């Protein structure tokens, strides 16, 4: 099965030529292992996506959806909500990553588990929990009333604030890990050196830690933004009618309007956007890796 490797390492020339059918048998043995996944992905991944792209070109769909004010609104929502969530997530993620970085081994493992818990929990569970917390008679309102900040419950649910809260909660683990690994690659002695040269803690952070963790921050920011643009559940569960994002618009076209070509066009637009961002993300990852090497 891994005879292909064998074949390549065998010195050429001289020795007796392999029998005519041997190479074919070897190659087929090796492809046998890749064949299932390739067949599966071609039939169940590429074909549906291809059909989707094909459908998107019917009925002048692109022009139609881009002229729809609801779509434009959803695109604007997607950008603003994703941007806001990304900023909040990266800031919170940075704080958490710093704590993980500074923690001792045992504390670090426990805190890692805490960060990973929402990662393993499904989005509906998380959104449900936030809905319980943020509803009018929920814990957050009870707390705000308890400390006298407000007399009557503040509407915390079904608005953009709630959407961002819900999204940030889902996104945080994705920000913590890239930032943590870029922090962890900083030599501790750089901080010591800076202190010996007269830097206070604030200056050490501003001039050493922060710039050196920049690759982690940009990777985290991009990754989080990429994921944000595809959110579908949270705007429905936690947002109001004005907080629908592009994914919700796809759903609306497909299942309410049963306008497949329109939905497909929107889906292609979203995929292209995400793919470009993913390409940039991989650049950033590579650049970050190079920085570490040196």
């Amino acid at each position, binding site marked *: 099965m891994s005879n292909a490797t064998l074949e390549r390492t065998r010195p050429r020339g001289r020795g007796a030529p392999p029998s005519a059918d041997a190479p074919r048998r070897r190659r087929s043995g090796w492809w046998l292992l890749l064949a299932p996944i390739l067949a599966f992905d071609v039939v169940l991944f590429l074909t549906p996506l291809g059909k989707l792209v094909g459908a998107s070109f019917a009925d002048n769909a692109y022009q139609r959806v881009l002229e729809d004010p609801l779509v434009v609104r959803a695109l604007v929502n997607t950008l603003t909500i994703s941007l806001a969530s990304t900023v909040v997530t990266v800031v919170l993620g940075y704080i958490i990553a710093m704590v993980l970085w500074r923690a001792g081994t045992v504390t670090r*493992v426990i805190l890692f588990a805490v960060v990973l818990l*929402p990662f393993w929990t499904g989005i*509906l569970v998380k959104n*449900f929990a936030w809905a319980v917390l943020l509803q009018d*008679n929920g814990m957050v309102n009870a707390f705000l009333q308890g400390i006298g900040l407000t007399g009557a419950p503040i509407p915390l649910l079904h608005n953009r604030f709630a959407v961002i809260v819900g999204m940030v909660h*889902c996104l945080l683990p994705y920000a913590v890990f890239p930032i*943590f690994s870029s922090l962890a690659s900083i030599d501790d002695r750089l901080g010591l050196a800076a202190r010996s040269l007269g830097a206070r803690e604030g200056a050490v952070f501003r001039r050493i830690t922060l710039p050196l963790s920049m690759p982690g921050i940009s990777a985290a920011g991009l990754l989080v933004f990429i994921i944000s643009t595809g959110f579908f559940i949270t705007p429905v569960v936690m947002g109001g009618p004005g907080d629908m994002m592009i994914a919700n618009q796809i759903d609306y076209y497909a299942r309410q309007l049963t306008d497949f070509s329109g939905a497909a066009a929107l889906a292609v637009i979203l995929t292209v956007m995400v793919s470009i961002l993913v390409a940039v993300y991989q650049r950033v990852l590579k650049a970050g890796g190079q920085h570490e090497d040196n």
Partner: protein
Amino acid sequence: MKTTNPQHRLLALLSIPAFLFLVIPTAIVVPVALNDSRYITFPPEGISFAAVAGFFADRAWTSALTASLQSAAIAVVIGVLLGATAAIGLHGRKFPGQPAVVGLILAPMIVPTVVLALAFYQFFISIGMVGSIVPIGLAHAVIATPYVYLTTRASLAGLNPALVRSAQSLGAGPLSVLRHVYLPIILPGLISGALFAFSVSIDETVMSLFMQSPGATTLPVKMFTDIQFNLTPKIAVSSALLVSVATIGLLLQVLFVLKRRSSTRMLPLAVSAQT
């Protein structure tokens, strides 16, 4: 020296809200499910299993649970088979089309789930495969397979392809190499991959929503539909069930990380977070 200075104390102080923000929502789920009240409140007014009993007495919810387990079973079986064979097939091998093959294997992770949902929705209608849990399970398998591939590949990272060659030169046939050389090494990766696959499937909502039918409504879809009208104790029970699954997955992962002394290795580059 690491914790004594005031800046680090400030950092620790700043981080407390961040950690509470992470933990509290997950932590309240189980108590809410056991709340002794017809309304959803926190903190609970008393402990009762009434809501749990109600959940399991409700056909709509139990069949959703069954549907979820069925789709997860399909996703895990297909994911493990395809992900593992792909990782072994690509191990220690370089050929002209290799980056493209790896790219194809990982691609389902970066396509937004809503796009896949739409594509599958159209596709399965067009081939007349609707009204059962099978297409949902297959769709889940598409997004779960890359995870199994990644975890298996990670567990193969330490295996020298020369070892495999030497086994073959000793006369071992392909099946025997699979069983005696690869299987013991990939087993941890397979198990964690299966875990990921299960978790991806059990929590997936968007694709299941698009492809739902009366006989094939998964737990998250049922929750999603109900939650838009009201926060009910049955949603809470369902959430608590899923949180228990998540906790088991998390504990296994932490054990794994502890054993391997690597904290980031197990993290998939998942872009297809179940949004």
